[in-house]
């Protein structure tokens, strides 16, 4: 199969053959859950957090951000995403869902935007669209139409045997409910009546990035903990080349994600327990887009290293 012909539908046909073949057993899942729980229970016990601040929330995005740099993660909390980026992300997400529902023909951008407005009326991108002039709308349409078309093309060909769950939230509670890890997948696909057929799909409005792989691992872990068995794969759909990346879920993937989750949770537990303590800085490529870059001592280290 050439790269140009790969669609979500063709990826699912290949994955269909792997349903029920995972070597990761239910006992392995329970061992993993209990290992994470034990480590996080100890960490929460030691921290003695103010009960009004429980549960400690560990959303997927915060795992990535605190492991990169805790100080930047805190600085980013108050920030807002650019409206056009928000709109691009929402258009890509909705385009992927409608294409996966096997429509007779691809939808026009305006239909995709109607979908965004219906499910996310407060999206700052939609508000910007509504407030824009005719000329601005034409400019946005020119930018967003190729994105919507590309994502719809890539997500086409999905058989009706697969059920698409858009914006599916998965949660895993640890330490007796005192720590809650969460992730929202852009799509979760399963075949009702066929256990162990889960495929998590993440949609990106741009090129693939190395962080996406770590995110995929975490999705795999949370889906495994939610259902008691590992998903078939984590599929990332993007506008780059290749447009689809498939990450098969192995024991190594799950254990790596568990280590990252525990490490990030420990940092977050410390931050919640000691709100006045200075969050550690960690120089890296992210310094270039950090709101603290004008006054952070680590920026110069990052520049030196580069």
């Amino acid at each position, binding site marked *: 199969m050439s790269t140009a012909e790969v669609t979500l539908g063709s990826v699912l046909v290949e994955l269909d053959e792997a349903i029920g073949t995972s070597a990761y057993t239910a006992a392995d899942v329970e061992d993993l859950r209990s290992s994470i729980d034990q480590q996080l229970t100890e960490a929460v016990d030691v921290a003695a957090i103010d009960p009004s601040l429980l549960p400690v929330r560990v959303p997927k995005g915060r795992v990535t951000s605190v492991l990169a740099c805790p100080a930047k993660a805190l*600085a980013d909390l108050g920030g807002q995403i650019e409206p056009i980026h928000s709109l691009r992300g929402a258009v890509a997400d909705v385009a992927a869902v409608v294409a996966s529902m096997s429509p007779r023909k691809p939808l026009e951008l305006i239909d995709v935007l109607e979908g965004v407005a219906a499910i996310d009326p407060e999206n700052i991108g939609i508000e910007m669209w509504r407030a824009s002039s005719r000329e601005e709308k034409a400019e946005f349409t020119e930018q967003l139409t190729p994105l919507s078309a590309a994502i719809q093309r890539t997500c086409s060909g999905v058989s009706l045997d697969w059920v698409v769950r858009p914006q599916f939230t998965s949660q895993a509670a640890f330490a007796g409910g005192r720590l809650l890890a969460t992730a929202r997948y852009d799509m979760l696909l399963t075949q009702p009546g066929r256990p162990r057929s889960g495929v998590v799909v993440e949609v990106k409005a741009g090129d693939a990035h190395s962080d996406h792989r770590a995110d995929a691992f975490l999705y795999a872990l949370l889906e495994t903990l939610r259902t*008691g068995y590992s998903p078939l794969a984590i599929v990332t759909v993007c506008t780059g080349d290749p447009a689809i990346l498939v990450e098969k879920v192995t024991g190594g993937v799950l254990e790596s994600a568990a280590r990252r989750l525990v490490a990030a949770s420990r940092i977050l537990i410390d931050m919640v327990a000691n709100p006045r303590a200075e969050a550690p800085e960690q120089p890296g490529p992210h310094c270039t887009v950090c709101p603290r870059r004008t006054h952070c001592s680590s920026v110069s280290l990052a520049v030196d290293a580069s």
Partner: protein
Amino acid sequence: MSQRTPRELGQYAQEWARERLQPAALQTAESRYGDASDHERIRLANFGLTTMLDCEARVTASTGFDGWDVLKATRWLAVRSLHRYLSDDGVTNVQRAVRSTMANTIDDAAPDSEFIDGWLKQQPPGVRALLAARSSGWVASLLETVRDADLEAEALKPPPVDGPPMRFYYPGRALMIEARVDGLYGRKNIKGPSAETLLLTVTAPAFVDAILDFEGTAATLASGVAPGFVAAVMPKLGQVHKVAVDTAMIERGLALCERLADLELRSIDGRGATGVARSASFFGCRSCPLSETCSTREEAEAKSTVFGGLQPNP
């Protein structure tokens, strides 16, 4: 005291409800529920309950049904699609069940968007596709969670969408309690231990116990026979939380009904939110009609809980 049979528990619940809810019922119109105007009647149902559990004051500002949207339409379509999927009319695919349910609804649609069929017909293709995806996902979540919880999925039965609704009408007054059931499971028994289980999808696990108390009580009041169990299906967590319906649950459920009825009355008799407990939440406050004047909201925004206890770093 020996344990009550399902029938005896149903009778106990109805007698107890008539007594406990009398003060609230007497404030409503002396007529059938359907004959009273919105300002003279009280409907106690899931939405009011979850609002109350989140913030009592918000119930007093409730403006009632404010039209259809994707969220409300998703469950409406999903429950009927589940009905079609589980019935014997040959639709064995969840996606096809949702599509045919939507197509039939639109075919028979009235022109008025006040009703679901008319509203659906007016939606553009993108919204309909999303709605179909969300509804089929809802059905699949229910089926999978039931299966993974080792309940026998093949014993799942659809809720009574076309049959008599699960409602309890207070005799002679415009007060109604409505149960919300997404599926039924197991055999009913009226004289001895009943295996009948009412299933409902719960997306707010923090309130699951109170929701089950309310729904178990409402269903018992509606049919006059207690189900054996009520079970919350929680797809986000992949869990089913199943509890027995007993006298203690009915009493807790009626206490919730009593409190909710008083709060609903406040929006009718002008007492408003004065002296009512307020509780701020990030999403609840955003859609609350009281938010402009609510001091709790201001306090909540100043508190660090918005980011799960983390303080933005300068």
